[in-house]
């Protein structure tokens, strides 16, 4: 198995998009971390530095978009939140296709501690009308989906992660489309919907469940908005029990989005794995994920609870 970090996929996508002369890159002193620095090194004339000033960067991106450019702006996901109102009022409301990428999202960010571990970014950006929200799980899907954004007329927020995780899309690039969930494993007993660094944990959980005779479907919901409601409905009918898994608050992220959708389409028992209304702290990613309840074992336990609820209904 090979490994890759989704932030590297973002950097590679910008290089891939460079042949489009309308693509411009905006940075706020974290290009070395978000990997837009690779674009800067080759195309300095199309890369703009805004210093540590995210609000200004986002509105400048809007000005560039209003003038026919395709801006890709990035910083840490937590500092994207600082420009929330700018994304709402200055970008999404007039409808400019500005693409904001926040790297280092989630508890998995690790040692930098709770100030850097954005756990509510997906929730807040999902609440903005007309905004696409992505959270790819590996470098390959981050690259493919970021490249697709350049064709979109909608503004977007993409969360990438700092650390390398197992690659899940090697040789499977063609299945990736913005707005379409990807079923990575089939099983009839429970559906596990996951995003980001929790996707490979969901696959691990499915293997553990299989040893106990429980067969789980695992789907990567890399697009939180617009949510693939067709797939939600299909899985609800087929499996009758749901688990969501995300390195994000239980409030308003994937779990929230799926709950909103299920309640309208086809209500089935739903158990959510995520951050339980609390902040993280400094530590190595793996022990932190254990402490926060974000492991394959947590997904296994949630799947069993969902199945029990299905059977007692």
């Amino acid at each position, binding site marked *: 198995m090979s490994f890759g970090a989704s932030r590297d996929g973002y950097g590679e996508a910008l290089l891939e998009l460079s042949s489009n002369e309308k693509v411009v890159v905006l940075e706020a002193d974290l290009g070395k971390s978000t990997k837009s620095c690779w674009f800067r090194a080759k195309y300095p004339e*199309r890369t703009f530095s805004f210093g540590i000033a995210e609000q*200004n*960067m986002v509105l*400048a991106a809007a000005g560039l*978009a*209003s*003038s026919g450019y395709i801006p890709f702006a990035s910083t840490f996901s937590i500092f994207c939140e600082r420009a929330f*109102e*700018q994304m709402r009022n200055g970008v999404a409301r007039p409808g400019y296709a500005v693409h904001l990428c926040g790297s280092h999202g989630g508890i998995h960010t690790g040692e930098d501690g709770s100030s850097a571990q954005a756990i509510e970014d997906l929730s807040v950006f999902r609440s903005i009308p007309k905004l696409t929200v992505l959270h790819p799980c590996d470098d390959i899907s981050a690259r493919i989906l970021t490249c697709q954004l350049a064709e979109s007329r909608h503004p977007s927020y993409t969360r990438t992660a700092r650390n390398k995780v197992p690659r899940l899309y090697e040789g499977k690039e063609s299945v990736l489309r913005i707005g379409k969930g990807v079923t990575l494993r089939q099983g009839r007993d429970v559906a596990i919907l996951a995003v980001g660094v929790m996707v490979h944990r969901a696959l691990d959980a499915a293997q553990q469940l299989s040893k106990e005779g429980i067969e789980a479907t695992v789907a990567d919901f890399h697009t939180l908005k617009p949510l693939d409601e067709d797939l939600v409905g299909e899985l609800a009918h087929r499996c009758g029990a749901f688990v969501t898994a995300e390195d994000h608050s239980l409030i308003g992220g994937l779990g929230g989005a799926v709950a909103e959708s299920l309640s309208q389409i086809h209500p089935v028992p739903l158990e959510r794995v995520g951050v339980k209304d609390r902040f993280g702290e400094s530590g190595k990613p793996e022990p932190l994920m254990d402490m926060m309840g974000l492991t394959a074992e947590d997904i296994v336990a949630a799947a069993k609870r969902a199945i029990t609820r299905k059977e007692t209904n």
Partner: protein
Amino acid sequence: MPEQDSGAPLLSIDSAPYALSQLEAFARKCRVDILRMTTRAQSGHPGGSLSAIDLLVALYGTQLRVSPAAPNNPHRDRFILSKGHASPSVYAVLAQAGFLSEDDLDRFRTLGGVCQGHVDVRCPGVDFSGGSLGMGLSFGVGCALAARLDGNDRTVTVMMGDGELQEGQLWEAAMSASHHKLGNLKGIVDLNGIQNDDFCYQQMDMGDIASKWSAFGWATRSLDGHNMEEIVEGLAWQHEQQNGPSVLLANTIKGKGVSFMENNPKYHGCAATPEELVVALEALG
């Protein structure tokens, strides 16, 4: 798109005395429209519209290359009203310039109209959706970078209020404009001295505003924002500032032209009653 389609200012300023009196006449008509719009809607921001209107009339009259026949021409000069609540002033000028009809003005702040409460890009001739202060200059920085990437000589003018200078983002933008040496970016600050709750110096005393802009690397020039000759000269000076960003600091009177509104914080966000409108229109002649 060919350059000549970008449009032209309303007036040729070559015949200066004639043009100045014409600009003053335009401004008077615009003041009437501002008052009628806000009174009809019984909401809106007449005070800051009346303080800004002489500046706007001179800007559209002598500088901006825009055309109602091609409001989305990519090479047009851009105007960004960062103090987006002063929208009636822009709508009044756009009506004079042929972008909007009387009917559009009549539907100010009503459902389905293009004249939204705060300037919005759904309105022909409006380049920026405002309403949240401190954002317009950043947007202008992006527009100015785009013009430079295009190799096009279009200019970007951003009008700000003085209360708005309290927003931190505005100074992020000011710093980035000089960092990127944006000679095509022009600022105008409408220094009417009053913000929503009260006089600016009571809400947040901003001290020496000219020194602040200078310290951020902007060429600055102060002027009387109700003296048409000074404004036209100031805009011409600003047009020549090509090496970096420049700003006109315009001393104005909130509510200018309507005696009971002048320098009165009440009329920041409060329309005249129909009875007050009669008095105001008589005074304007």
